[in-house]
């Protein structure tokens, strides 16, 4: 039995060692955001500063319009997630429960677009944005983000709806309900776990989206968080890492809070995708 105990201890030691390695970059990010900007290239560099200061946070929160980027990101992310949830779940419902001409083709096309890197479509999408006068507008991001997340969302929700017995639908039709009634009273409530899981992933995707926002947005006051954070480089001759990292920590907070609260959904969403295949 002694070897079993030693083995257990070894497992924990390896796991803790792994955590130390993988969390070092994040700890370094936090520590850099907490040290005075002047000492960023002090010699020797330290992993953890002697003196902690909130100077960078104060600057970022009150001296520059960082809060505006935060609100921009929040607006775009929430709008996209809500619209995508309804659009994808209703599309998934149609695909899971009905036969209509071109249905198989539509589903195959949705699956195929998940393979192709989304960024390869950036040129025609940019032209589309120009045509619809969506360039340099915050709202201009949203339709493209929705289109971006719909294939994965639809695929996941469809799989879940297929697990819901169709008997429930039948009962509604017997009572004279139509497809819309079924969607509202059966599908939305019963498929809500998968819709929630997908929505969390969509929130993360949109919250951190970089290339499209970089291409479409110009004005400072319209920028989303990733653009503001990465754009802070070009504005100064030397990078003020303290400010950049303070912004990074603030922008990570909603994501981490979201993750800790909805951890179950993260896991279930991922697992069902992995096991269905």
């Amino acid at each position: 039995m002694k070897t079993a105990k030693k083995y257990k201890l070894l497992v924990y030691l390896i796991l803790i060692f792994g955590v130390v390695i993988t969390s070092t970059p994040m700890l370094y990010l936090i520590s850099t955001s907490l040290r005075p900007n002047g000492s960023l290239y002090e010699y020797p560099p330290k992993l953890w500063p002697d003196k902690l200061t909130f100077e960078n946070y104060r600057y970022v929160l009150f001296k520059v319009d960082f809060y505006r980027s935060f609100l921009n990101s929040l607006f775009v992310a929430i709008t996209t997630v809500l619209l995508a949830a309804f659009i994808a779940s209703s599309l998934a419902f149609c695909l899971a429960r009905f036969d209509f001409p071109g249905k198989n083709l539509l589903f195959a096309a949705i699956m195929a677009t998940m393979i192709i890197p989304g960024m390869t479509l950036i040129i025609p999408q940019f032209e589309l944005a120009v045509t619809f006068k969506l360039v340099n507008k915050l709202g201009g991001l949203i339709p493209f983000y929705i289109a971006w997340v719909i294939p994965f969302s639809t695929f996941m929700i469809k799989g879940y709806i297929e697990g819901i017995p169709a008997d429930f639908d039948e009962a509604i039709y017997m009572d004279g309900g139509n497809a819309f009634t079924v969607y509202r009273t059966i599908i939305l409530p019963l498929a809500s776990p998968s819709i929630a899981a997908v929505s969390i992933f969509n929130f993360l995707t949109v919250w951190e989206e970089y290339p499209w926002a970089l291409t479409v947005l110009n004005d400072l006051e319209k920028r989303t968080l990733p653009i503001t954070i990465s754009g802070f480089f070009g504005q100064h001759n030397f990078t003020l890492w303290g400010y950049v990292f303070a912004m990074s920590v603030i922008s990570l907070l909603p994501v981490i809070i979201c993750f800790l609260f909805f951890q179950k959904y993260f896991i279930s969403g991922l697992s069902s995708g992995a096991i269905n295949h």
Partner: protein
Amino acid sequence: MAQNYLTMPGVTEKKKIKINYPLIFLLLPGLMVFLLFTIYPIVKLLIMSFFDWQLGLEQKSVFVGFKNYLQVITDPICRKAIANTFVYALVTVPSQIVLGLCVAVLIHSTKRGKITFRVLYYLPVITSWVIAALVFKYIFNNEGFLNYLLCDLLQLTENYIPWLDRPATGLFVAELLGIWKGIGWNMVVFLAALQGVPVELYEAASIDGSGKIKQFFYITLPSIKNTILFALVMLSIGAFNVFTSIQLMTGGHPAHQTEVALTWMYYKAFAARDFGYAAAFSYILAMIITLITMMLFKYFPNDHTRRIEKLT
């Protein structure tokens, strides 16, 4: 299970087609968004790839046939970018799977702290690419912490290594970032798969006297083969999507030597404004990744799990 409600039952007898309007109402938003913002761009991209495309000036765009494709194929930087992407995939995909699986097996074997470890290992996954790229850039800077550690503290290197200014090391840092960010995702996916392996199999193996390592190769690996394929496909697609880390850390420098497929496409489109070239390149890229996905599915027979299911 699917039933035909597009035409209402009973109505068809009268040979009158009644359209199910609620269904169309449900179908239309998704269909419209998908057709307009995804399918239309795919078609438009194909058209663009045969033109010397001028953005927004359709009438001035000149049809050039396969000239863009020829240019892409003969371009040495393009070849470099594709090669870099393949190297990135070949380095990051197996590393993520092996490390993620190791962590998953270890976490699976523990009794306490499962959730804590899961959360801690998953944190890099939810860190955005932009932030991760900036942190790695800071660590691997010339005056960054790593050079100080290697050169001044441990004296392993004689001089500071310009990690991000050299092609090989620049790519290496991006690969390291990709692996770091991907372990958590693999861990979660494999943990779920491990929970699905029937305990009886291990019990039977233990009675037969086979050790842990033998059990891993003869029970665990075959049982989760489908999940490995799933991870392989998703990670390969993910490797071809790499953009932000390279863009922010090396920007393709020096002399486009650290360029990957998407950064090169982006440069050609929005810096060089050679949209036709970028469109042709995008199409070739999409074809490569589709081929890879199809090959993975073909050469990865997934009948093992079925065999195991039959055993139990």
